C-alpha cells in the first residue's frame, strides 16, 4: 500500500477544502499536510493528493515543482535554512553559511549520511532587522554570529 492520509489528516484536508469554492485551491494546504505526515512529497504522495482532491495529477505536480518549500526528496530531521540575502549578507551571513557547511560537511540541499541534518541556502525569510538568521525546521533563530550558530547545531540531538 502506498501513501495514505491518516484519519485525522483526512479531516484536516476536508476542512481545507471547505475554505474554497474549488477543491483545486486546497492543493497547497493538502500538500503541506502531506509533507507533515510523510516528510516529503513523493510521486505516491502526489497521486494520493490528486485522488483525494479529485484533481488532475499534473496540477499537483505543477504546484510541487513551483514552490520551493515542498521537498521532493527526504530531508534531514533538522532542516537548516541559512538566509544569505542582502540584509543578512551585510551582517555576515556568508560566514555563517560557510561555518554550517563545514560543520555538517554537506552542500546546498544535501542531507548528512545519518539523516540528521539537511542544509539549504534560502532567500529572504523576513528577518532582515534581526540579521543574520537561520531557521531550523519551522523555528527562526535571529541575531546570530558564527559561535551562536555552532552552539545551536550542537544543541540539536
Amino acid at each position: 500500500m502506498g501513501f495514505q492520509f491518516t484519519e485525522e489528516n483526512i479531516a484536516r484536508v476536508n476542512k481545507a477544502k471547505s475554505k474554497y469554492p474549488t477543491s483545486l485551491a486546497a492543493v497547497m494546504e493538502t500538500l503541506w499536510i502531506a509533507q507533515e505526515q510523510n516528510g516529503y512529497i513523493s510521486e505516491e504522495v502526489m497521486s494520493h493528493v490528486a485522488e483525494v482532491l479529485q484533481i488532475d495529477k499534473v496540477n499537483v505536480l505543477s504546484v510541487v515543482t513551483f514552490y520551493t518549500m515542498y521537498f521532493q526528496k527526504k530531508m534531514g530531521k533538522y532542516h537548516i535554512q541559512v538566509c544569505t540575502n542582502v540584509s543578512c549578507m551585510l551582517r555576515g551571513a556568508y560566514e555563517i553559511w560557510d561555518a554550517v557547511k563545514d560543520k555538517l560537511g554537506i552542500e546546498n540541499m544535501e542531507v548528512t549520511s545519518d539523516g540528521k541534518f539537511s542544509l539549504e541556502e534560502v532567500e529572504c525569510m523576513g528577518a532582515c532587522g534581526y540579521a543574520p538568521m537561520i531557521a531550523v525546521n519551522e523555528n527562526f533563530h535571529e541575531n546570530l554570529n558564527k559561535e551562536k550558530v555552532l552552539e545551536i547545531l550542537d544543541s540539536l540531538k
Partner: protein
Amino acid sequence: MEEIRIVLPKIPDYHKIEVYENNGGYQSAKKAFNISTDEVIDIVKKSGLRGRGGAAFSTGLKWSFMPKTTDKPKYLAVNGDESEPGSFKDRQVFEDNPHQLIEGILISCYAIGAKTAYIYIRGEYHKWIKLMQKALDDAYEAGYVGEKMKEKFGTDFYCDIYIHKGAGAYICGEESALMNSLEGYRGYPRIKPPFPAQRGLWGNPTTINNVETIANIPKIIENGWEWFSSIGAQKHPGTILFGLSGHLNKPGVYELPSGILLTELIEKYGGGVLNGKKIKCVIPGGSSMPPLRGDQLEGIKMDADSLRDAGSAIGTAGVMVMDEDTNLLKVLLRITKFYHHESCGQCTPCREGTGWMEKTLKRLADGNGTPKDLDMLESVANNIEGNTICALGDAAAWPVKFMIQRFRNELEEYLKPEIILPVKNKVHSMRNTVNPLSTILR
C-alpha cells in the same frame, strides 16, 4: 518627528482578544456597519490612505473599482506574502496586533461587499501563521467573524476569513500571481487588464490589499478621515512601518509618520551606522527600489512622492543601509541572484535577462570584468524593464540600472581596464579589437 502609533500601539498584550476589546476593539466595525458602504469608501478615500505594499495606490479608489451591481461573489485578498528582501513589517502586525487586522478586514469586506476574505501569508512564517490563526479562532468564537456576526453586530452583513499558507515563492506577492496561487495553480502573474476588480479570484470581482493597509482601516473609521489625513506627509498621510536593516546599531521595525527625514530615521531610530562609519548606499524601499548614494540622503523625506522626486521609491519601506566598506558589486550580484531565482519563467526578458545579469555579475565579481560589461548590463536591464507581464522584471532591472548609474566609479574599482589586444582570430573577438568592424570584414 514625534512618534505616532496607529498600527502597532504600545499596549501590552494587545494581541489578546480581551485586551483588544477593552481598548475599544471591534467598535470601529460596529460603527462602520451602521453607515452605508459608499460612505465607508468615501471616508477611506478622503483619508488619503495609500497602499503599503509597494505601489502606494489610493486604497479608497481601489475599493471604488469594485462593481456595485453584480450577481457574482466578491472577494478580498489580504497580501501578507511579504517576501521583498528588506521588508519584515507585516509579521509584526500578525504578532502584535492581529485583531486590528481582522477588524480591518471586516470593514473592508463590508465596504466592497465581499463575503469571503483570504489572508495570504508566506509559508516561511509558520509561527506567525499560527499566531494569526489563533487570533482568528478567538474572533470566530467571540462572534466577530462568520455568521455569528449578525447577532453580535446586529446587522445583515457577515463574512468569513481564511488563512492561506504560501509555500515559498516571492512572486506570489504580486497580486495576480497571488490569486493564481490561491486558486491552486503555480504563482504565475496574469496579464492586466482585466483588473482584479473585474476578474479576480475564480473570475469574480476581487480587491487585494496589503496587511498594513488593512490594519489602518479601523483607526480611520474610529477617528475620522480628517485625523488620519493630518498625520505625516500631506499626499501620503498616516504612519509607515519602516523596516530598518543592514549596518545599523538598532535595526528593526519602527512605526513613524510618513515624510520623516531618511537621515533622522537612520540616525535617531536606527541608532546610526555600526562603528560610526559613513554610509555608502541606502536602498529605501526594499531590494527592488533604486539605491541612493550616501551623499544623496540629505533632506530626503520618506513618502512616495518625495522619494520619487529623489530618484527612488517608497516600496515596502524596507530601508537597507550599507556602510563605506561594503562591496556593492557583491551586493548587486546577490540582489540579482535573488530575482533570477524568483523569476517565474513566463516572460522571456525576465527569465533569460535575470539569468544573464547574474552570470555577468558573477564574472565581474570574480575579477574578470571590464567597464564595457557595465554597459552591457545596463542594456540587458533596459530590455527587461517594461517588457514583462508583471513588475518583477522592473524590480530586477532597477537595482542593476541604478546601481551602475549611481555607483559606476565604485563598481569599476573591481574591474580590469578594457583589454585592447591585437588578436589572431579577429571575427571571434571583435568586441575587444582596436580595429573598426569594417577593416576586419574587408
